[in-house]
């Protein structure tokens, strides 16, 4: 049994000892962390653990006991606002990578001061997007953060 805070609510789950967080979440119908490469390379399974982005495909569920786990549903207002900027900049096509990117942008906004293009690119490196090419995403994130000041 593992217990953690999931998007503001305390939840308990029966797990196998070697189970990964993405499997636990998806089995309980939390499907915004997507299964992509399943080997830590693509970023679509990203969740926040105590507000820090991590790939849920490589994180043992037993290790998040007593921690705070946030998926994109836990930052819904932030993600909705960001997605509007993605739309304006044409940074959104298939959308598969968006939940992971939104969580990383959220963590970046909490962690970093003086965010510039290099900071945004630094946080985007862990997220594969086969549609956009990252330039439009960088512009959208920059405009979004400017808009929040």
């Amino acid at each position, binding site marked *: 049994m593992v217990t953690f805070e999931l998007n503001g609510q305390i939840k308990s789950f029966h797990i196998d000892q070697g189970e990964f967080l993405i499997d636990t979440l998806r089995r309980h119908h939390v499907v915004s962390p997507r299964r992509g490469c399943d080997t830590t390379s693509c970023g679509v399974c990203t969740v926040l653990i105590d507000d820090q982005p991590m790939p849920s495909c490589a994180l043992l569920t037993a290790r998040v006991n007593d921690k705070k786990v946030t998926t994109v549903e836990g930052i819904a207002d932030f993600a909705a606002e960001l997605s509007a900027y993605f739309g304006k900049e044409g940074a959104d096509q298939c959308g598969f990578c968006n939940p992971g990117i939104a969580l990383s942008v959220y963590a970046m906004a909490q962690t970093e001061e003086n965010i510039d293009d290099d900071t945004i690119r630094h946080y985007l*490196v862990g997220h594969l997007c086969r549609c956009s090419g990252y330039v439009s995403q960088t512009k959208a994130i920059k405009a979004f953060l400017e808009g929040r000041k």
Partner: protein
Amino acid sequence: MNIDNLVKPTSLTEAYKLLTADQSNTVIAGGAWLKMSKRTIKNGIDLTAINSLKGIKEEADVIRIGSMTTLSEIERDETLKQYYSGILPQAIAQIMGVGLRNLVTIGGNIMSKHGFSDIATPLLALPCTLEFHHQGILSFAEFIEQKPLKKDILKAIILEKQDGRGYFKKVKKTALDFAILNLALTKDENGFALAIGSRPSIAMNAKEAETYLSQQPILNDTVIKKAATMALKHVKLGDNPRASKAYRSALLETYMLRGLHHLNQTNPQEGASK
């Protein structure tokens, strides 16, 4: 990797006892690449409850990095950013993405002895030793050469405090890719150190070139070119799907020349290369 049982010891003694109790028992550090292994292990030993293995501590003569310190913590550490031009944090900042670096620990990376490691290369060029629970202190080079790897728990990476400059270069095809070649150069009062990694085998020192460079009164073009020739002669490079031996040789020569020129010309805070 299939884990029958995940155990969370609270002391090193308990962890070591568990590790050596069964051949299949294995330490789980960051655990980032557990899925890559097909092994079944009886007990996965989770070290996250042993607080003495976490964090970076600056002491009088050394900087101690606990083996369970994450790559992100090292990347952001202000002391390490100044140490030998910050080559260790700069090498780490080029590993995959922020999310992975929040998960991966330096101890897990070192103990895996991956050929493509971007951490082994700068550590081989720095005055660095490893502190193990059972074996005590080993130099990083001794650890690299240890075959087979003895079952032990890495406690800390110990960096000797010295004034030195450094240069690090990782050559890769894309931001998320492994290195085709990586190279670290340092210079301090003891002379030069030169390490080459992702050869594609695990990093090694170019000892002949290090000795030669350290004996030269000045570092001019002739000396630099001769040192590069010596490194090419003595460092074993090979082929893999990322690059040929010939391409790696060309990269080694090119970046060794650039690195040595860089060390010759820059001040200590401008040493590392992106």
